[in-house]
């Protein structure tokens, strides 16, 4: 087979690899543990991609493009990564695109993981009977950030900082954030915050919290607070961008749709009191998509394939 499209989503814990045929159909999908050090992270990606190709008896010569979604700030000119704190990447740029291009001899596109997921969420909704021009993907995992597709195009912002909503203070006094500010959205409502505010051994802390909220007043109080902050974030996201749809994702956001259901209830409540709120924050325009879609990897593959300089498949 030729013209294969590779998409990789390098997460804080696991790395997803998708191999798509030129039509975008999945032909192989693997998930491996992420190697979380700058020295070995690239080797880990090379190995994971090689293994995914080997599973369908293919090699790099059959690949058209490779797209990588990774947390942090990406230099659009060089594909180098900085500020991916959970991967041990700081201010020293990791030349990810250049290193992978020389390893595979194929064009490599690197983009922020949440933006990749936004691109895939936009495509998925349009392909499955929900026509939307603009989508905000709200990634709720270790941190919180949003990816925006406006009128079908990825919006990066003037300084490439668009969507960094996790570090806007929403609860002054709630505690310090790694960014240096106090009471950021991430401090009160991220997956990590949920796990800290309601400690559990459950691998899905958001689901554990909402299960407990049914019978434990302390859990109910935390759940209400988390939902209130996230509902506010969704409203402000829509009011800023005018998107047609908000898609929840990330470890906590995709968790069994439990957050999506709670958020829809919160939006329904304000919609019942205000026709304007019903128009602007329609609960039915809030979606959560199954995590096995591997949106990050799928969006990365799509962005790489759509890059103008990429050879035709």
């Amino acid at each position: 087979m030729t013209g294969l499209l590779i998409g990789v989503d390098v997460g804080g814990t696991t790395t997803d690899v998708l191999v798509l045929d030129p039509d975008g159909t999945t032909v192989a999908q693997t998930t491996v543990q992420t190697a979380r050090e700058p020295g070995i992270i690239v080797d880990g990606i090379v190995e994971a991609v090689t293994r995914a190709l080997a599973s369908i008896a293919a090699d790099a010569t059959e690949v058209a493009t490779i797209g990588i979604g990774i947390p942090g700030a990406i230099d659009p000119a060089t594909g180098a990564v900085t500020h991916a704190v959970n991967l041990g990447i700081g201010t020293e740029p990791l030349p990810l695109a250049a290193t992978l291009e020389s390893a595979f001899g194929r064009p490599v596109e690197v983009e922020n993981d949440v933006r990749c997921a936004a691109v895939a969420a936009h495509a998925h909704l349009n392909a499955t009977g929900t026509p939307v021009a603009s989508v905000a993907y709200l990634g709720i995992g270790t941190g919180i950030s949003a990816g925006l597709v406006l009128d079908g195009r990825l919006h990066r912002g003037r300084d490439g900082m668009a969507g960094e909503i996790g570090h806007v203070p929403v609860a002054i006094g709630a505690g310090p954030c790694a960014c240096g500010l106090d009471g950021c959205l991430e401090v009160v409502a991220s997956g990590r915050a949920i796990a800290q505010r309601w400690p559990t051994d459950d691998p899905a802390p958001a689901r554990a919290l909402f299960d407990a909220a049914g019978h434990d007043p302390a859990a109910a109080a935390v759940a209400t607070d988390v939902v209130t902050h996230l509902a506010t974030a969704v409203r402000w996201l829509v009011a800023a961008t005018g998107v047609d749809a908000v898609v929840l994702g990330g470890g906590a956001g995709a968790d069994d749709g439990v957050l999506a259901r709670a958020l829809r209830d919160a939006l329904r409540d304000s919609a019942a009191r205000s026709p304007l709120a019903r128009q602007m924050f329609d609960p039915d325009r809030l979606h959560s998509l199954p995590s096995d879609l591997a949106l990050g990897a799928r969006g990365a593959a799509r962005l790489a394939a759509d890059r103008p300089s990429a050879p035709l498949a």
Partner: protein
Amino acid sequence: MGRRRASLSAGEVARATDARALNLRTALQVISSAEGVSRASIARMTGLTRATVSSLVAELIEDGLVVEAGTGESRGGKPPTLLAIATGGRDVIALDLSAQPFRGTRSDLAGTVRATVTGAPGRVTGDDAVGELQRLVDELLAVEGAPVAGIGIATPGLVDEDGMVHEASNLGWHDRPLGQELAHLDAPVWIANDADVAAMAEYAILPDGADDVILVRLADGVGAGVVLNGRLWRGARAAAGEIGHLVVVDDGAPCPCGLRGCLETIASAPAILDAAVDHPDGLPGATADAGRHLGRVLAHVVAVLDVGDVVLACELDGIGDTLVQAVAGELTARLLPAQAAHLRVRMSTHDTDQVLAGAAALVAHEALGLVGP
């Protein structure tokens, strides 16, 4: 001198019916986009033949839209005849419904106002608001002047490209088919959100390089217009920048929209005036409070969209410095240093009424393809 204008999205593109009409529009656009345009330069810029351009220009002159305006410098042959928009050739009508009483103007294509109308004192909503709007339009249509190219209406709230006003709670309009209700008029009507047209007017006078802008208007309500990459960004049903009904005070004052504690209940021009009465620091104190709430909301908007300029416009005089200081203070405290570093916050320097100027420019662009003024 080139002119800047936020370009329009695909859905707003000209609805020219045939190639001739499209070519006429293109020629007019070229003439309006720069000074010193000649028939030859139109041919160069559009790729149309000299003969076609001559015939188009003849029709535009005959139609009163273009005039010959002196001669340019010769490049060896006969000096070229320069062309200009006949700014008196058409009138445009603009209405601003964002504050009551409503206001309207009839102006020429250079923006020179021929006539101004103001609605009756007091508040109107629902059918009465449509009646009042209709009355003002009729009054402006009756004014002596050039043929009317179109009517631009700037309304608060959520409005789509078919002229349906989905929500304008201050006017009591819910799913109001305003475009249809005004379809009987002799001139075409364009309806847009007030903050959006103000953002376009503001964008036209911003320094080059400022291509990502939020323009916030404090009128009877609070709304923002968003320009991204030099394009007006409306979002679905013009909801982008519709920040007035975000709740900023839990269990705050009731809002006409049905919620409590909306930004509008704190930061609209009437809300600031109301709060100033009882505030120990009077109007400056009430303004600073409003500015802090506005700044908290704008921190989210700037974080989401990553824009470089925040421009504030307010119906009230003399509070600009206090407002800018309060808003900028909150933005600096609430944004990551990398986002706050290049952010500029200032009052609008637009010297005429932004909303009416923007609505007039919208008509000139949509009806005729003109760029500027």
